[in-house]
Every structure is written in C-alpha cells, then in structure tokens.
C-alpha cells in the first residue's frame, strides 16, 4: 500500500510540474567534438520521465567518459554514482526508452579536471563511508550466523573457495586427455607448494595451517569488535589456501568455462604465451604466500585456481577459464528470454566480439597484466551463459558484477572459534548497534529531501564548488525539478548548446517510417502495444494499450482507453493473484495510475525495453523491420 500511495503522490506532483514548466524549445545540435586536445566542457543530462522508478525524470552530469548522478539508496540517502557514459546512454535511452536532453557547457581551460575532481572526490569520500556501513553489515551477518549456530556456522563466504573440488565431491569423469590436463593442473600446484616450502622451510605449510587454525579457534570476546568479519575471512581464506597447497585438489566441476568454438582453440604460439602467463601466476602465488597483506589468502586462492586453469588449457589445447561468478546468481526468467530472443541474439553477437577483443588483448605480446585475464574470464562466462540459454535453453544467469574470480564453496569445514552463547549474543547486539549507527551517520550526512536536497540540487551544489563563470541557483524556484533545472542550466550558461538524443521508440519509429514508406502506416501500427514492432509488453511495465507520447490531441481519449485497460487488468489481476503472484494486479493498477495524467494531456509512460544490444541505433538504421524486442 505504501508503494501505491507513493506512486499516487509522485504522479500528482509530476503532472503539476509538467504543466508548470514550459516545454523545451527545439534544441540546436551540439557542435561536434574536435579532435586533439581534451574537450573542456561538461554536459548536463536530463532524462525524460517514464513509468517505474523514473516518473519525475532524472539528471546527471557527464565529465569526460564518466557520468555522475545521485540516486536514493537505503530509503532516503542520496548517493553519488559514477557510470561509464556509454552505459548510461544505453541504460536510459535504449532500455529505459527515455529521450535525453544534453546541454553542453564550455568551461575555462583547466577547469575540466577541477570539475572532475569535485565529483570524483565527493564520490571517493562517500564510497569510503558506505564501505564502513558494508563492513558493519558483514560483521553483523557473521555474528548473526555464529549466534544462530553457536559458532558452528560451517560456511564462510571466502571468495574463490569454490574453484576447488572438496573431498566429498565425486571424482570428475575424464577421458585420457582430460585426465592428463587435470594432472597438469595438480602438478603445477604441487610445484608451487614445493617452492614455498623451499623458501620458508620444510613443513611450513603444515605449521602455518596449525597457526591459522589456532588463531581462529582462539578468537575471544575482545576480538569480536568492528572488523571481525574481515579478520575472520582473511584468516579462513589463508587457512584454506595453505590446506589446498598441502594437498591440491582438482578444479571443481562447473567452476570453469570452455566452449566448443574456434575462439577457445589454442595454437602453438598461444600455448607458449599461456606458459609464460602460468609461470608468472606461479611466481605471484609464491610471493603472495610470503606477503604481509592481511588479506593475502584471497588473492592466493585466485592465483592457485588460475594456475590450474592455465595448466589445463596448455595440456588440453583449449582455453579453460575460471567462471568468475559466485555461484548463487539469480536467473533471468525463461519467459523473458523467450520473449526477447531477437534482441538477445544480437547481444550474443556482441558478447562474442567482447570475447575476441579480450582474447586478443591477453595474447598480445607485451607485458602481462592481471586485469586482462580477469576481463577474458568475464567475457567467456557472459558469452557461454547467453549462448547456452539461446542455443540449448539453459537457464540464463544474471552476469556477475565481480571483476575477479569469486566462486564461493557452498560448504566447507573451516576452523571455528570456541565462543559461549552469551558472548556471541553480546557481540551480535553490539554489531547491530554499530550497523545502525553507521546507517544513521549516512542518513544525517546525505539526507534526501524532495525540495532542498535531491539529485538535482546536489549536482548543483557540487558544481558550485568549482570556479565557473556562473552557477545555477539550486534554491531557485522549481530548480529541484529535473526538467526545470535543465532549462535553468541553459539560461545560466548562455553559450551552452543543447542536443536531444532520442529514445529507442523515437529512433525505431523514424527507422520504420523510412522502411514502410508511409508515416501513416507506421504511426497506426506503432500506436498500440498489440501491434507495435518497437515494443513488447513486459511484466516490468504498467498495463496499457496505446502510446500517448506522440499523440497530443488524442491523448485524453487514448488515456481513457488506457484507463479502462488498466482497470480491467486490475480486476482480472485480483482474481489471478494467487497464481501469478500479483503481477497482473500490479501492472493493471499502475496502468490506471499512469493513465490519469493522460486525461490532462500529460504523457509520462513510454514503456521499457527489456534487452537491447549496445549497437541498437545502428541496428535500427540497418533494418527495415526490426524483430519485436
């Protein structure tokens, strides 16, 4: 119910403000960037409203290749995010189906870097404070688990622990060549173990394992303060790495990727390159065992798993890449995959390109960098997942956000602390208070307020810290509204140039009109969600029948029809709720709510696009009739 009230409120305000703010004048195109010196400007980005989380529009600042924008997190804290400019454009224009108005503002020479740092410095400071909250939450999670299990939690979220087969796992079935590859991986780990013992003394691994186990078992009440989760997982990760070195297991089944495509085949020169990389990774593993980093266990586990994968690759003649995912990723609903096969096939082609690009970078004959292998692992997993879903109907995992191998073992027996229930209860309660205090500090420092502190006003506040020729008055009338603020930027910087970058639907209609040869035929077909080629109804969107964004005169009439469809969906959804989890009910009700503004000539809803390739604009230009998305 609170969601519905919030939706009502937001819509009422958006309608009022949309009426209050004049439509933007037709924008002149921004001048093309000249080559050579880095451009000295920033761009103010205004994204028009759409249903969902963006009914009021959104704003951002682009500086160089990065876009900075504030979003609400934790139910009322404003957090500054940085995203790649191309990703922002794709996310808002293609997937969000929202036209961007971009106002480019020239800044004095040298001010661009100052401007960048104003935003980046803010983000760095704020990220550090959110990092504290994350750490308190990790403490809380661990102590809660210990309290519930009396310390016998059995599962620690040690990253990269999931690449190694546990003793309980059935042996992997392997033919002769696979067995040879597996043995090559194990031999490489044994050589690393021998080198470590050669440098640190015979019996080092067994001694270190006992030391680490004892340290964990000796954790007492005093050690259960802030940072206990980090300390415990550091110890557990190193303990596991030492144990694995003492008795190396093969890579766990399903923890690696190797596709039967030419790009995974290795020629002789490729194997030579991988031999160099394997030797470098082995050297790194030996060095990490002696590092003073308290968190050396994590990178050591990654290095050991990679070493096995590289040796398997060399021995088998095919690339074997670690799957970077944790292993508990959510799946994209099968119905969503089936409904978007055309778009996903184009995305699959892009994933193949990503993989080939990353492969070329890794095999380039210059210096080794770990980031290149990480990128190839990510590209391989993303490609394999999507290919499996489209070609074999396999479940499609949501690609991992982790940049390095992070597969977590579902269960391993780690050393455990011996702590009394009362001690754990006290520590848990203290951790809960620390977490609440960290959250309260963030709420106090970065509060959201509809008018005085929102994602618009805070961008202006940061801009005001940089000496520019003028500044937008963040407290000005309606300057807290994204659209009004966009006008204020243009007014404040008279030399600025604005450019409208059309949404997916606008671009699609332009393309279809050219192909159809008849604007009327295109308009008629694309007016309804039942016949449009530019849109496929999806569960994320409200229920509606007609687009009203380009039908000003007919908007109230179409709004009535949309209202009726929404109302019908609401009634039907109430009856079907036990079977569809309330999806139709929500879509119907939101359909009603977003139809009301249309009665007053205000169009907010444009529909969203579930999946779109990065090259969606060139796709549309090249196709006469695009497959339904």
């Amino acid at each position, binding site marked *: 119910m609170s969601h519905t009230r919030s939706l009502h409120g937001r819509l009422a305000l958006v309608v009022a*403000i949309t009426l209050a703010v004049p439509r933007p004048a037709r924008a002149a195109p921004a001048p093309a960037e000249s080559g050579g010196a880095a451009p000295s400007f920033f761009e103010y980005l205004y994204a028009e409203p759409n249903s969902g989380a963006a009914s*009021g529009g959104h704003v951002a600042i682009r500086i160089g290749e990065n876009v900075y924008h504030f979003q609400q997190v934790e139910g009322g804290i404003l957090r500054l995010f940085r995203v790649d400019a191309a990703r922002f454009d794709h996310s808002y224009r293609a997937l969000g189906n929202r036209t961007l108005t971009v106002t480019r503002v020239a800044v004095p020479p040298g001010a661009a870097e100052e401007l960048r740092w104003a935003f980046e410095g803010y983000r760095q400071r704020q990220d550090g404070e959110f990092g504290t909250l994350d750490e308190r939450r990790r403490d809380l999670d661990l102590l809660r688990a210990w309290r519930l299990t009396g310390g016998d939690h059995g599962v620690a979220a040690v990253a990269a622990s999931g690449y190694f087969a546990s003793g309980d796992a059935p042996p992997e079935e392997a033919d002769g060549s696979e067995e040879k590859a597996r043995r090559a991986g194990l031999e490489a780990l044994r050589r690393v173990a021998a080198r470590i013992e050669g440098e640190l003394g015979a019996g080092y691994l067994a001694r270190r394992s006992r030391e680490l186990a004892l340290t964990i078992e000796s954790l007492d009440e005093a050690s259960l303060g802030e940072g206990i989760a980090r300390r415990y997982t550091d110890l557990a990760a190193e303990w596991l790495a030492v144990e694995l070195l003492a008795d190396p297991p093969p890579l766990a089944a399903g923890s690696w990727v190797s596709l039967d495509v030419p790009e995974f085949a290795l020629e002789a020169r490729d194997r030579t390159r991988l031999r160099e990389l394997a030797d470098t990774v082995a050297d790194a593993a030996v060095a990490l065992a002696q590092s003073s980093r308290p968190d050396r266990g994590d990178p050591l586990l990654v*290095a050991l798993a990679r070493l096995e994968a590289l040796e398997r690759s060399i021995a088998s003649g095919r690339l074997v890449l670690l799957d970077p995912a944790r292993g508990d990723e959510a799946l994209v609903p099968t119905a969503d995959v089936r409904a978007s096969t055309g778009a996903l096939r184009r995305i699959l082609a892009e994933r193949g390109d990503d993989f080939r690009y990353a492969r070329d970078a890794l095999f380039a004959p210059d210096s080794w960098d770990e980031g290149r*292998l990480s*990128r190839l692992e990510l590209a391989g997993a993303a490609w394999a997942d999507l290919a499996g879903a489209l070609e074999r109907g396999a479940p499609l995992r949501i690609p991992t956000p982790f940049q390095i191998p992070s597969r977590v073992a579902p269960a391993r027996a780690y050393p455990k602390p011996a702590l009394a229930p009362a001690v754990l209860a006290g520590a848990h309660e203290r951790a809960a208070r620390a977490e609440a205090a960290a959250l309260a500090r963030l709420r106090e420092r970065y509060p959201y307020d509809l008018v005085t502190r929102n994602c618009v006003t805070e961008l202006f506040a940061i801009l005001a810290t940089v000496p520019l020729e003028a500044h937008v008055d963040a407290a000005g009338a309606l300057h807290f509204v994204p659209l009004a603020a966009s006008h204020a930027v243009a007014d404040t910087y008279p030399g600025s140039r604005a450019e409208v970058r059309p949404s997916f639907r606008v671009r699609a209609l332009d393309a279809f009109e050219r192909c159809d040869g008849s604007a009327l035929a295109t308009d008629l077909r694309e007016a309804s969600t039942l016949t449009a080629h530019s849109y496929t109804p999806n569960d994320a969107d409200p229920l509606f029948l007609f687009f009203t964004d380009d039908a000003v005169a007919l908007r109230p009439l179409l709004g009535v029809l949309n209202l009726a469809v929404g109302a019908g969906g609401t009634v039907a959804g109430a009856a079907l709720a036990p079977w569809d989890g309330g999806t139709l009910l929500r879509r119907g009700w939101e359909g009603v709510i977003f139809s009301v503004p249309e009665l007053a000539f205000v169009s907010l809803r444009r529909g969203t696009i579930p999946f779109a390739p990065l090259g969606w604009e060139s796709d549309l230009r090249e196709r006469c009739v695009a497959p339904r998305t």
Partner: protein
Amino acid sequence: MKYLHRTLLAAAIAASLGSSVACESFSDSSASISDIVSSPVTSLSRSSSPEIGYREGVRDHVAAQVRSGATPSAILASLAETAKRHGVSDYESNQSTYRGIGAGLKLAGQNQTGVDTFAAAVARTPEQSRWIQRGFEQGV
C-alpha cells in the same frame, strides 16, 4: 514571473507530498537485469585498456585518501577493493598500482618530498619506487 502561478501550484503540491519525484531510487531489479545482461562489465571498456582504467582508479583513491590524512601503509592496504573492481587481486605486484599511486600523489598536490616519503613506506623494491616516480611525473 509569467510562470509564477504554476510555480506556486507545483510548490504547494510538492510541499504537501513527502514522496520522491526528482530522484530515482537505486535501480530496481528488473532494470538491473536488463542493464547487466545487455551490457555486462566487459562490453563497454574498450575505449581504454584495463591498465589505464585501473591506474585512474588507484590515482583517484590515493588522492582522496591522502587529502583525508591517511598514512601510506593504510592507503596501500585500502587499495584492495579498488583493485578488485578493476580485475586485480594481486595489487602488490602490479606495476599499474604504483603508477597510479604516483599519479594520485600528484593529484593530491604532494611535492617530491612527499613522493619520496610515500615510496619509502610502501615500495618493496627499487623498481616499485621508480614506478611511483614515473606516475608522479607522467600521470597514468
């Protein structure tokens, strides 16, 4: 002035509502899925090499930490998360880490004495010191 009545109307409505209108909440789940399936992290980063992106990340992190008064050893230890975000787990042996540190010291306004002090605290080899100096002089 010509929009005064509309402004007042909107302001009155805004004041009467406590809801969000001008700010998105952090991506809802469906939007996140669409984003990450359509353009996973590997797909948009061809404009610069992973090394450059990592050095820039280290540069900015170090500059922010130096300005906040953190010690060199604390700054080095705090690089783990930045490194992970750029696909680097073993940041201690990575040349780009030290190039980024040098560039970060420059961005934070440190002088040569500051660079020498920092290098003495975190570099374990002469080569690492040279990489820091190179980052300080040449940027990322």
